[in-house]
């Protein structure tokens, strides 16, 4: 009985491993196949690697500048988002005041609304602020649209910190603000990591807003460049370059995961307990 269970477990483990890693490996293998081979025999191995796909992907989509733009947009957004999101989450978690429910509900409502819908008014607003086709405009929008998730997750972390710590800190002569910065914020570091990782990945892959708010090729982020390549291949059917571009987009995320796996999982563990 126990042995049988163990075999079953190993089998399930094997299938899960192949099921997860297989498709990703397939994208990588396909990226070095000549373009016409991909739809003709998608599951064969390349006879000789077509490294030219990568040169083409890099050249045609401006993936180099896209890479830098995506990196700047994601990191700058996090730099603004984490402090102001934590401040709001803390106040909403630990303080009761008139309009509390309204403010909290307002933030949560933002998670349930398709961003697609606000694109036209948002574009007109940014145009009035002279922020269309600028990175700072995109960053401010990213911060605003990442707030609901941030407040939701960090609020959960603050909820689990006992109120007595605040009382004790205030008793020691700390102000409301210094209690937050000195005592409370360090306690939710795992929460900041969770938000940083998840919001960061989400921003790295964000497409809909960037698509509309960035209008010139030089300003494109990676997903916009990638999607353009996907669209172009509908007219020119260059699958090889498309898959190479997919690899270029996936690689940094996978690298970050591989390098910081333990950190990510620790943070996630904490997040799941308290979120």
């Amino acid at each position, binding site marked *: *009985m126990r042995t049988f269970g163990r075999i079953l*477990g*190993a089998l399930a*483990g094997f299938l*899960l*491993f192949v*099921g*997860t*890693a297989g*498709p*990703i490996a*397939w*994208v990588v293998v396909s990226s070095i196949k000549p373009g016409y081979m991909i739809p*003709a025999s*998608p599951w064969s191995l390349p006879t000789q690697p077509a490294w030219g796909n990568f040169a083409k992907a890099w050249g045609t989509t401006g993936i180099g500048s896209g890479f830098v733009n995506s990196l700047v947009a994601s990191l700058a957004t996090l730099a603004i988002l984490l402090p*102001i*999101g934590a*401040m*709001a989450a*803390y*106040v909403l978690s630990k*303080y009761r*005041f008139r309009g509390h429910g309204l*403010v909290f509900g*307002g*933030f949560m*409502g*933002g998670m*349930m*609304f*398709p961003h*697609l*819908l*606000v694109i*036209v008014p*948002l574009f007109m*607003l940014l145009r009035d602020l002279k922020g269309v086709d600028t990175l700072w405009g995109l960053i401010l929008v990213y911060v*605003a649209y990442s*707030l609901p998730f941030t407040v939701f997750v960090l609020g959960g972390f603050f909820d689990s910190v006992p*109120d007595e710590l605040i009382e004790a800190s205030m008793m020691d002569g700390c*102000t*409301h*603000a210094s209690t*937050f910065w000195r005592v409370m914020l360090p306690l939710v570091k795992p929460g900041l990591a969770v938000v940083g990782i998840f919001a960061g*990945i989400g921003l790295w*892959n964000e*497409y809909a807003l960037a698509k509309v708010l960035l209008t010139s090729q030089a300003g494109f982020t990676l*997903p916009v460049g*990638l*999607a353009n390549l996907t669209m172009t291949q509908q007219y020119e059917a260059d699958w090889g370059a498309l898959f190479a571009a*997919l690899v270029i*987009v996936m690689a940094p*995320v996978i690298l*970050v*995961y591989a390098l910081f796996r333990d950190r*990510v*999982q620790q943070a996630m*563990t904490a997040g*799941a*307990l308290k979120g």
Partner: protein
Amino acid sequence: MRRKGQGPFVLGFLAPAGLLYLVFVLWPLVQSLHLSTFQWSGLSPVKKFVGADNFQRLAADPVFWTSVRNTLILIVVCGVALIAGGVGLGHVVNEETRWARAIRSIYLYPQAVSLVVVAIIWYFLLSPQIGLVNNLLRAVGLGSWERAWLGEPQTALGGVAAAFVWYALGFYSLLFASGLKSLPAEVNEAAELDGSVRLHRFWHVTWPMLWPIKRVAVVYTVVNVVNTFALVIVMTRGGDPDRATETMLTYLYEQGFEVSRFGYATSIAVANFLVVMAISLAVLFWFRRDPTAARA
């Protein structure tokens, strides 16, 4: 809790986030909602006020109700699969075997790559002539099971659901794995017991104790099924075949951005908002109390 002299502090701490949110999210949102009372192509400044007409049309639009049905099916099917799969896989990855370690090293990758990439991968897996699924079926002599998975109404929605579950399962497993780890040691000692007792123990002790995780998981599912938008757009061109995979968001996209009924599309968005909110509230209400607390 109310505290002495909290007023300026509360205001000051809420202001940066609140202002950004007000300007970039709520204000455009209100403008959008306002648009749902107009007949507007979304292509020019020309608009015509029509009051509640868009909502009356919506109530009488069979395609809209198809899209509501498909959205609910995705939420329920993906929710059940993700929670069941997440609990099961959560047990597996908590083990210290070779496969568990191997899975731990990769199971978050699908979540990390872009949904566009996920959609392209699954599109190829399910493709009729060249797809891996059909080729495997042929290879093992089940050629008669072969079909155009994403082109037939019976299987297309299932294909989208499978891609979404593949995308999100790692995250849910991690969620449940850490939930399981956090349970008191005596619960985990169940591993020492034999099969039937373990199952009994799981069902009556472990499962109820996982309620906070389940609550988070269900709310995440409801909110994140929104993400199937990118999948449906890429995998079935936003609703093929003949509306079989039409979801509320893809229908919104079609009406607003393809057939130039932007006012009508915003009324779909309002409906989508109400549905998601209603389900989320129902879930929060359902999980409002810790079932194990009563026991203690």
